[in-house]
């Protein structure tokens, strides 16, 4: 049997790779991809805690399922916003998007 800690370390690695991408990418779509990595790492944690420590319940299972659904909704809206930003400003580079800052 694989120890639960291995899963947790894997999820932590994915989470912080996502954080690193969130800091360093200069493009709205790439930043959104990093966000997906972060959300995915959290989903793994919920499933692992449920399966290893409370297998008689299904709380983590359903939390993961709803998180997947909400992540899909969030991505759809975010991509719609990104397309609109591109249509209005002609770029999705973070450097050039300064109008929303103030």
């Amino acid at each position, binding site marked *: *049997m*694989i120890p*639960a*800690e291995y899963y947790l370390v*894997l999820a*932590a*690695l*994915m*989470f*912080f*790779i*996502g*954080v*690193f*991408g*969130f*800091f*360093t*990418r*200069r*493009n709205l*779509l*790439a930043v959104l*991809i*990093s966000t*997906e*990595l972060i959300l*995915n790492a959290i*989903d793994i944690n919920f*499933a*692992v805690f449920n*399966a*290893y*420590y409370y*297998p008689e319940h*299904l709380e983590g*299972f*359903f939390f*993961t*399922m*709803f998180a*997947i*659904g909400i*992540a*899909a909704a969030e*991505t*759809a*809206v975010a*991509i*719609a916003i*990104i*397309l*609109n930003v*591109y*249509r209005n400003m*002609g*770029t*999705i*580079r973070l*450097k050039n998007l300064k109008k929303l800052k103030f």
Partner: protein
Amino acid sequence: MILNTHAIIFMGLALLMVIAALLAVTTRNIMRATVYLLFVLFGTAGLYFILHYTFLGAVQVTVYAGGIIVLFVFAALLIGKGARDLTHTSILRYTAGFTAAATGLALTTYLIFTHQFPDVKPLTSVVPINLIGHTLMGSDKYNYVLPFEAVSVLLLACMIGALLIARKR
């Protein structure tokens, strides 16, 4: 023997996921980043299958790998040349990002290995699908009909909102 195959599959998936995640946040081509993200999502689905949550793995494959990746591909194709991440990140920002990620990872790993978790009672069989259905649709304690309805309203609202934001005026 079975446990060994599980360990080998887990190690393979973990390696695939970490390498694909690293490439997804470093490659300059947005389309390639999307495909690497797809690999990470498939790896996650594999983890759910190893954990005996086969339904969750199926949901992961259909919603994430089937839906979200298609959205990313369409966005990258619609934006075209503007989607390329050609500008180089400044070394200061690079260092800041790396330091934040490395510190957080070190702290989290330390906490994971020093924390006293409760006793492990792992699942031994696949969660039956009728149990999932009854839990999702029941209205008793530990049942999920209210969040289910809330998510359905949220998805409708997000669909209308996305159409409203993205349509051509």
